[in-house]
């Protein structure tokens, strides 16, 4: 059964149609790139999957259920924002995640923080922007979730941090889970992807495996993306 499924999914904000008639399904065990230019609807789709928005039409299902209390226990979500309370320390945040998520591996999170030399007693507001992003990622990837939804995890970070983030994702995700990485930085994530979904102006322009694109189009995903989204 698909871990994430959209059936005729649409979302409208006033006069703006953010998503229109999206039909797609994501199977467990796949690393999927949700690719598209800025404003194409990637974040809206991820927010809908997290129950942060309500569809205007159609439905979105997580493991066969509409987003709600049960689906949220299965999804590990990294927003494209700094969303952690800045007065909390890394240790308090680990306690917080351990309290609410039965699948949170506190030991693993602690190890990752130690490896990066991040003091657990340090508050979020005392950390640099890069360290804050790493703490967010560590918390999200320390869950044994069924679906990881990572919204722009490598946007706005330096190349070394970018490598660390991708490495952390690949090393730590639950192999029976699906990982959805939303980004417009294709070249950086291409090597870790199994499948790609191209989103353009709120529509699915393509859903394919990376191997199919390489074999059928004879191009890398990045090159094909540039061709599809040529201005």
């Amino acid at each position, binding site marked *: 059964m698909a871990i994430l499924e959209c059936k005729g999914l649409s979302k409208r*904000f*006033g006069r703006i149609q953010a998503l229109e008639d999206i039909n797609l399904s994501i199977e467990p065990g796949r690393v999927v790139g949700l690719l598209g230019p800025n404003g194409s609807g990637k974040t809206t789709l991820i*927010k809908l999957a*997290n*129950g*942060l*928005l*309500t569809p205007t039409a159609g439905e979105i299902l997580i493991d066969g259920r509409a987003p*709600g*209390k*049960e689906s*949220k*226990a299965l*999804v590990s*979500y990294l*927003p494209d*924002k*700094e*969303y*952690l*309370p800045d*007065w909390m320390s890394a240790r*308090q945040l680990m306690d*917080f995640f351990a*309290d*609410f*998520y039965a699948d949170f591996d506190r030991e693993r999170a602690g190890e990752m923080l130690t490896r990066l030399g991040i003091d657990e007693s340090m508050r979020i507001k005392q950390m640099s922007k890069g360290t804050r992003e790493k703490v967010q990622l560590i918390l999200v990837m320390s869950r044994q979730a069924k679906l990881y939804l990572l919204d722009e995890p490598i946007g706005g970070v330096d190349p070394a941090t970018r490598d660390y983030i991708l490495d952390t994702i690949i090393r730590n995700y639950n192999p029976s889970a699906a990982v959805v990485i939303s980004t417009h930085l294709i070249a950086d994530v291409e090597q870790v992807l199994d499948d790609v979904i191209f989103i353009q102006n709120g529509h699915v322009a393509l859903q394919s495996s990376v191997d199919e694109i390489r074999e059928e189009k004879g191009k890398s995903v990045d090159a094909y993306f540039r061709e599809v989204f040529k201005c």
Partner: protein
Amino acid sequence: MLSKLLKHEFRATGRTMLPVYAAVVVLAVLANFSIRVIDRSVHTLVTIFCGLIIAAFIIGIIAAGIMTLVMMIKRFYTNYLKDEGYLMHTLPVSVHELVWSKMIVSVVWFICTFLVIWLVIILTALFQTGTSLAQFFAGFPSWAEIKAALAEAGIRSGDLWVIGLETLLAVVVAGLYTCLHFYAAMSLGHMFSKDKILLSIVFFVGISFVLSLATTGYSTGRFVASGGADYILETAQEAIRLGKAILAEMLAIELVQSAVLYIATVLGLKRGLNLA
């Protein structure tokens, strides 16, 4: 999960409220000394300094009250409607649990602030011009004296317990209503993409207007239907009966209003959540 939300909410709010209470208690002790110094002082400068401390104490009391209200509003706004909302609304908890956790913690702080303010006022009045703790409390009538006075007026102590309970319930419901009034306005205002704060204020004023109009209309109707000004209280029992009835009716009105605001808050967060 509600207990976990409460635990974290108390931790988040306690780090502000407890130092505020501590500061007010320290100011109360200083004000107590200042009042005694002013009584004996002959130096203008010392008197002015002590006067300033007493003024700071009064400002501190007012600030503690305002702080409790601001904390209630700010926690809901920053934790649910700003960036922290990405964390809170993706927890495996229901919207009802999210709203109740904020309401319960806010009402507890309202009650604590009320108690702290009374405590510091007593603290300031204590030991003034040789008054001991025993002398201070000796000024209050004993429970036996109160019961005897009530029995003389023909009022049973059971009636007082009912009124006490109703009053306590009314205080709690008033606290919940205050929270929900702000929560509903903010939830509805934040359903829109732009001008969220302005729209929250508009909703707050609109809700106040509609609810006060409905309450006034209902109360006027009840007053006219019950015979209005012709109702004369002849005995203490009648006064108690009327008091209980009015309290029960006020409680019922506040409960209905709170239920309406609760539904608006939950629907706003469930159906209209639109985090920037």
